[in-house]
């Protein structure tokens, strides 16, 4: 990644992504190895008038040391001030920018999947609350790294792999356009139009079929469809995922039925879950099978009552730039925007208008997306009378 791309990614994250306001505090989280972009984000945020930029570097190899060597009481533990920090971040309406890349597999290879699954910090829950209550303007942006590039392009020498990944990130972030913000605005206009049409149909359920999948996901009557353009409770509009191509809603966690086969590998903090199949009954994932990594997902899905139920349903069409690359990026941020997907765990309460429906929205300490769409999968809307309306065929919108 050259300095120019770093600079442009940083500007996109600070301006269009998080939309950092003058005098705001900006929290940046970055795994070690992503310093170049973290520094560029800090500089861009100060130029945008940020009061202070607080960068937290995390280290997956120190986490590895914990999983390997620490006592049981260390697993899932975090000092209470971490939770207090989240609370104050909400009170002070900070901006948050997270730099996303696939981890070096060496950081998690061979670790006990049960301990890894149990090591869920309570801070995560506190952070999700900030998001759900719309207290923060935030953005997760892709950050090319050599480790990530080696994962995506294992056949290429390191520098070529990195160069290729950087070009791909540039492409999917629309930074190859003269005016990336205008290009994003056009795409968001289209996605907004689709979400309004989907909402207008008031479907009872969405049905996925094809290629080993026969799944019905029930919808909540007052749940809206949206694309990833958010507005905080204070009215700051922002774009939480860059790139993004999805329209999504929060489903009825009691009414998921059938079998679904994942169409792309799922990366859970470094563990790759491949060939995933999940069977749902009465909204619950009652069977989770996979060619590899099933235990890690099972561990996550048994964390709490809501962890085995759906919190999100998202549709992605073939116009998205990610699907067109036909590449596995081993990163949910990007891969989930290649295809339609569902998520186990916490729902998106703000999408639901009716108070009774709001109480039905799934609640959990986890939120794990996995990809279930492809051009071979048909997506239909199911009306209250059981009739079906084609929504996606061969990756094209039918509505």
């Amino acid at each position, binding site marked *: 990644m050259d300095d120019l791309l770093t600079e442009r990614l940083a500007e996109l994250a600070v301006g269009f992504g998080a939309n950092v306001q003058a005098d705001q505090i900006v929290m940046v989280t970055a795994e070690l190895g992503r310093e170049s972009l973290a520094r560029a984000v800090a500089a861009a945020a100060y130029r945008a008038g940020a009061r202070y930029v607080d960068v937290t570097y995390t*280290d997956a190899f120190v986490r590895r040391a914990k999983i390997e060597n620490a006592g049981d009481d260390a697993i899932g533990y975090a000092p209470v001030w971490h939770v207090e920090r989240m609370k104050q971040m909400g009170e002070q309406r900070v901006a948050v920018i997270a730099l996303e890349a696939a981890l070096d597999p060496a950081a998690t290879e061979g670790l006990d999947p049960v301990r890894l699954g149990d090591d869920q910090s309570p801070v995560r829950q506190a952070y999700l609350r900030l998001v759900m209550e719309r207290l923060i303007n935030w953005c997760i942006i892709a950050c090319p790294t050599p480790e990530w590039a080696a994962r995506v392009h294992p056949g290429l020498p390191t520098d070529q792999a990195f160069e290729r990944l950087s070009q791909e990130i540039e492409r999917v972030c629309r930074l190859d356009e003269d005016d990336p913000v205008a290009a994003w605005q056009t795409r968001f206009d289209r996605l907004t139009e689709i979400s309004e049409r989907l909402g207008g149909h008031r479907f009872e359920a969405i049905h996925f079929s094809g290629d080993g999948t026969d799944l019905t996901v029930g919808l909540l009557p007052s749940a809206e469809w949206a694309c990833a353009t958010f507005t905080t409770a204070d009215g700051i509009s922002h774009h939480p995922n860059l790139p993004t191509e999805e329209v999504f809603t929060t489903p009825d966690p009691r009414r998921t039925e059938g079998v679904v086969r994942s169409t792309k590998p799922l990366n859970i903090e470094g563990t790759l879950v491949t060939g995933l199949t999940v069977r749902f009954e009465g909204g619950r994932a009652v069977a989770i099978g996979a060619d590899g990594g099933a235990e890690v997902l099972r561990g996550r899905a048994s964390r709490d009552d809501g962890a085995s139920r759906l919190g999100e349903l998202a549709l992605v069409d073939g116009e998205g730039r990610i699907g067109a690359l036909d590449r596995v990026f081993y990163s949910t941020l990007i891969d989930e925007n290649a295809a339609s997907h569902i998520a186990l765990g916490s729902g998106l309460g703000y999408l639901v208008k009716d108070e009774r429906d709001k109480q039905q929205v799934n609640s959990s300490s986890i939120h794990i997306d996995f990809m279930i769409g492809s051009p071979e999968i048909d997506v239909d809307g199911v009306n209250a009378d059981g009739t079906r309306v084609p929504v996606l065929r061969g990756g094209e919108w039918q509505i």
Partner: protein
Amino acid sequence: MADLTIDERRRRLARLLVGFGANVQPGQTVMVGGDIDDRELVRAVADECYLAGARFVELNYFDLHLKRARIEFGGDDSIGYATTWSYEHARAAAAEKWAIISLSGGTDPSILAGLDPDRLGRDNSPVNTEWLKAVSEQLVNWTVGPSPSPVWASVVHPDMEPDAALELLWSEVERVCRLDEQDPVASWEQRMGDMVATAGRINDLHFDALYFQGPGTDLEVGLLPSSRFISGGSETADGIPHRPNVPSEEAFTTPDPTRVNGEVRATRPLDVGGTVVTGLRVRFEDGRAVAIDADQGAEVLRARTAIDDGGVRLGEVALVDGESRIGQLGTVFYETLLDENAACHIALGQGFDYCVSDDDVERINASQIHIDFMIGDDDVDVTGVTDSGDRVPVLRGGAWQI
């Protein structure tokens, strides 16, 4: 040590810092701090912490490039700003009685080059006061240890090939940390035992003041009636012994901040938050540094010391003899941890309340800074004056006289 792999060398240093240095206890939260270039040693330290039974290792990476971004592009109210949760962080460390391991090494001076020295000097986090409080109230078992990095090696040995410079720095660090001994901990216990005995003899003389005299230096540092020299280890209020500095060769105390007079010349360069100050000369009148001059970097030190009332007064005076392995090497490390243990030194800023009795605790210096600089050398004589006016030689040619 050359026959050990770099991983094994890191592990030996990490083990010394976790066990002998901070003395991490089972169930403790440990904060491990270091420059972003120290990541390999940070990982080794974290590993040893968990092996020692730590419950949580909290990483605290510093990145001077972020400081640069703030100084260069931040508004005036960004300079010296601290978030409310950074206070929570320091208070949690005190309330939960954490262990703290800080890695220290020279940083790349070009990162902060060309920035406004006034803004640089003012960019000091006010939370430092909270951290210094946790230390001075002895609530945390802590240590600071060296972390050899390629950047630091290039600063210390600029004329060498990078690999050779790093190898030499590693072997110097191993030498001064006594990691070249079969049993480094036993070697340290012997040296620290000798230093504790020396500190005891100094304390028995009940000096009223210390005089430093040598080329460019003629300085009187008044002591408080109960100022007590401490050496080697420390102990938390709960009785956990720890060694605040690895290596440590000093006997130090907190002086009377109102009775410092005369001129002093620094005998080694010092690093002030990434800016190197060379050829430093300071004149004191009635405890206050009234003139700060230097060949290079004086503005940064002036701005830093102007941060509060105590910033221009002394919080520490420390004696180091010629047996110090750091002094013997003769290498300038551009890094306070090592350089301050090469020679006698004084520090502007916060004092140590545990060096005095309750009667004097209100009189020690208070500041949000603590900046050490070296004033000792073989040609700087140190003389103690008792309250009855007797002059007692303390150090001559680097050798203890008591």
